[in-house]
């Protein structure tokens, strides 16, 4: 396509400042963090002595980081699963065309407008072991309601039960979001297909299984990417709601990185944690980008 020179110059003028800022503040700092993670910088004053991957190896040996990785894994799995299942059920209910649909849609979507800090404080109160939900349950007669929620140190196969509280809080906030995505997806399915299926004698369950679910599969994929990168980078919710918890039951790499780097001034170790986090997010994002670009070609 022909473009006059002047227009190209204008275009560059628009693009260059943003690109420059992006390269300095995102990619430049990633490279800087990677470099720091290979040094012996442990304290306020920089010490750029090269030590190879020893920070990474040390990190993998610490109990806190090992717990963090398991926590991230389980939290991500359950958070995604709950959001996707609850989100789909809510959207399916609304899709049936119930009365006051707009009201319910807004109510379900509303938690998303809060920040994770607000969500965290709210659920911290609700699930606090002595005054929250437990107190309510005891009041109505369940005298054995003594689950410690986010203070529980019970675990099964490295799954800390304390994470349940965080999963509830995070899913409460994000289920409305997946609902909105699914609702848009369901609405885009041509009604003729469903009607002809009905004429052919398909029941409700058959329609869901053979028409609705297959047509919204790409949305599930997008939702998983969005939810996945939220949960892999999670910091604010855990910080506001629970902190690292007894024996790190509610700790995540983001919290560990923050305390290590900005409280303890262990800069090299903190950078190594960030590089691990980058790697985790990359594992989710790169396949997504590849499939997106493939689709465009």
């Amino acid at each position, binding site marked *: 396509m022909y473009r006059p020179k002047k227009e190209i110059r204008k275009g560059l003028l628009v693009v260059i400042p943003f690109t420059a800022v992006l390269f300095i503040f995102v990619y430049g700092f990633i490279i800087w963090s990677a470099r720091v993670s290979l040094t012996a910088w442990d304290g306020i004053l920089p010490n750029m002595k090269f030590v190879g991957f020893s920070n990474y190896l040390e990190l993998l040996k610490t109990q806190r980081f090992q717990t963090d990785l398991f926590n991230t894994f389980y939290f991500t799995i359950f958070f995604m699963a709950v959001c996707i299942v609850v989100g789909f059920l809510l959207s399916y209910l609304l899709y049936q065309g119930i009365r006051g649909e707009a009201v319910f849609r807004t109510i379900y979507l509303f938690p998303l407008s809060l920040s994770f800090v607000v969500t965290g404080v709210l659920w911290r109160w609700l699930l*606090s072991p*002595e005054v929250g939900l437990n107190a309510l349950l005891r009041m109505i007669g369940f005298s054995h309601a003594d689950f410690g929620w986010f203070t529980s140190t019970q675990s099964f196969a490295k799954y800390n039960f304390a994470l349940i509280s965080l999963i509830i809080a995070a899913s409460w906030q994000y289920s409305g979001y997946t609902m909105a995505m699914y609702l848009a997806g369901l609405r885009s399915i041509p009604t003729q297909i469903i009607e002809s299926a009905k004429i052919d004698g398909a029941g409700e369950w058959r329609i869901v299984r053979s028409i609705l679910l297959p047509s919204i599969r790409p949305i599930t994929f997008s939702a998983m990417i969005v939810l996945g990168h939220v949960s892999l980078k999670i910091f604010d919710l855990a910080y506001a709601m629970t*902190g*690292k918890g007894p*024996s790190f039951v509610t700790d995540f790499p983001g919290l560990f990185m923050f305390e290590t780097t900005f*409280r*303890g*001034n*262990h800069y090299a170790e903190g950078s190594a944690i960030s590089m691990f986090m980058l790697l985790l997010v990359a594992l989710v994002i790169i396949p997504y980008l590849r499939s997106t670009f493939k689709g465009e070609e």
Partner: protein
Amino acid sequence: MFWNKTAGWINSPKDVIDIISYEGEVYCIPVNIHRANVMWYSPKIFKEAGLTPPESMDDFFAVADALKAKGITPLALGDTNTWPSTHLLASVLLASTGPDKYRDLWSGKVSWSDSDVQKGLKNFAKMMGYINSDHAALTNMDAAGYVAEGKAAMNVMGDWAAGYFQSQGYVQGEDWDWIPAPGTRGSFTMLSDSFGLTKNAPNRENVVKWLEVCASKDGQDAFNPIKGSIPSRTDGDRSKYGAYLNGAMDDFATNAIVPSLAHGAAVSEAWLTKINDVMSVFTTDLNVAKATAEFQALADKYAPK
């Protein structure tokens, strides 16, 4: 150094000068002093149970057993931010080591396998059997509140708790009272907010003037009654301070002064964050041998050489 020229500085106890010095030079001016090794207790609970607040660790366990038998939570802890358990550990260690060995522990001269240190760690692990079940969900203020509300008998916390009680309208002698943390009478664990003079400060002259105000009797007597702390000098105007602070001033003038652990006076922030990580696990698994090994490894790495 500048502080020599500032009139009246000889009034700070020598132990304080040691804490704010590095290789014989003073690097900052403390504007206030807080005390960390204080035990807050509920006079009502102790009166009703016919008990007296414990002076030693043995007393503590005897009293705690008696309270527990009556269904009262003996010790309130609110360690959602971890440091309150580190704070408690420092008091318990001080109780079995005494001030000199406590100081040497943080300068790396005393090993964590020392018998007194071990006794402290074991006492701490034992103490965890007497705390409120929801400790990991509470902040330090919530735990202090448990004492004033009569939900728990005792709490070890710094003396900002006194400020908290007063701000909530609780009355000393009725809702709360204090003694030094069990086994630490005669020692004063201090922490302080301080201002420093940096090398190559562009406005050196003005900084020195500011520090002179911070160090002066008038400056400190203006600041501390409001902050709820005591002056870092021993000649403060007693009439400006309340009952608790006057008691603290008496102890400050006569006690052995040691640095607080949980607030960065005894060890570097780098060491402290790692200690907090060990504490997060230790308060749960109560494994003294494992904690000892981890504390020793940290001391080897971070203690001044």
